[in-house]
C-alpha cells in the first residue's frame, strides 16, 4: 500500500515538475493522471517480464480507496466560506442566480451535445 501511494505521489510530482519546468498551462496533477495512464499501459504490456510485486492489484486498490471518498476532500476548501461571508452577504442573490444558471446551462449543454453526437456516430445507448 505504501509502494502504491508512493507511485501515485511520484506521478503527481513528475507532473508538477513537468508543468512548472516546461511552463505548460496544464495543472500538475492532471499531467500526473496522464503519466499514471502511461505507466499502467506499460505495466500491462510488459506484465510477463515484471516482478510479481509490481503487477499486483495494490495500485488500483489504493487509488480506488482515495476516489471512494472524493467528496470528503472538498470539505476543507468549502469551509473557507466562513472567511468570506461578507462577500456572500453583499452579493448573495446575484451569486446564487449566476451559479445556478451557469451550472444548469453547463449540465444541459454537455448532456445534449454528448447525446446528439452519440446518435450521429450511430452508437447505441448504455443505460443498464
Amino acid at each position: 500500500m505504501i509502494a502504491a501511494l508512493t507511485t501515485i505521489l511520484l506521478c503527481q510530482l513528475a507532473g508538477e515538475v513537468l508543468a512548472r519546468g516546461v511552463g505548460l498551462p496544464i495543472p500538475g496533477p492532471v499531467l500526473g493522471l496522464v503519466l499514471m495512464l502511461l505507466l499502467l499501459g506499460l505495466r500491462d504490456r510488459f506484465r510477463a517480464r515484471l516482478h510479481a510485486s509490481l503487477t499486483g492489484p495494490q495500485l488500483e486498490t489504493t487509488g480506488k480507496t482515495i476516489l471512494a471518498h472524493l467528496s470528503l476532500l472538498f470539505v476543507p476548501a468549502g469551509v473557507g466560506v466562513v472567511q468570506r461571508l461578507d462577500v456572500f452577504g453583499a452579493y448573495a442573490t446575484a451569486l446564487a442566480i449566476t451559479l445556478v444558471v451557469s451550472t444548469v446551462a453547463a449540465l444541459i449543454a454537455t448532456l445534449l451535445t454528448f447525446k446528439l453526437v452519440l446518435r450521429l456516430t450511430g452508437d447505441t445507448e448504455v443505460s443498464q
Partner: protein
Amino acid sequence: MSNDFAPRTFELWVFLSRSPLLWLTVTLAAYVAADRVSQATGRHPLANPVLHSIWLIGLILWATSTPYGTYFEGAQFVHFLLGPATVSLAFPLYEHRKTVLKALVPMLAALFVGSIVALGSVLLVGSLLGLPQELLVAMAPKSVTAAVAMGIANTLGGDPALTAVMVALTGILGAIIVTPLFNLLKVTDWRARGFAVGLASHGIGTARAFQVHPLAGTFAGIAMGLNALLTAILVPLALGLLAG
C-alpha cells in the same frame, strides 16, 4: 481541588483548539456524520455530505471563535489528497478504456461545448448582474476541481480562497440538481449523464455519479480531468476578451 478544574480545562482547550489533531478529527467526524445521513436517506441529492459537513464545521468554528487559518492547519491533510485523487482518476479511466475510446468523438464534442458554456455563462450572467471583477475572476474556473481551479485563479490575480468556495458550491449544486434534471430530460445513457456532471461539477459531481452508477462515475472522472485541462487554457482567453 475544584478550583483547579476551570483553568485546567481552559489550558486544555487552548492546546486543543490550536492543534491540527482537533480540526482534522472534526473534519472527518462531521463528514462521517453527514455521510451516514446521506446513506440513511438512500443517497438523496439534498442530503449531500459535503454541503452538510461544511455548515456543521462552520458552525463549530463560529461557536468556538476559531479562525479559518487555524482550522486549515488540521484540515490541510485532507485537502492535500485532492492532488493524489486527481492522479487516481487514471484507474477507472484505464479500467474502462475500451468503453471510453468507443465514445471518444461525443466526449470531445461535449467537452468543448460544455467547457465554453460553463465559463461563458458564468461571465455573462455574472457581469449582467453587476458582480465585481474580483468575483468574476474567482468564479470563472468554478467547474474545475479545487486544486486546479485555485491554481488558475492564483495565476490571474484572483483570490484562491474565494475560488475554492465557488468550486465547492458549484459542485454541491450540480450534485443536487443532476439526478432530477436528467430524469426530467429523459436521458438515460450513463456515459452522457456522468460526463455532464463531471464537467459541470468536478469531483463532487463525480462522487455523486459514482454513487449512482460506476460507468457514470468513470465518465464523470474523465470529464473532470479533461475540463481541468481545457479550462486552464480557456479562462485567461475569456477574461482577456472581457477586459478588452
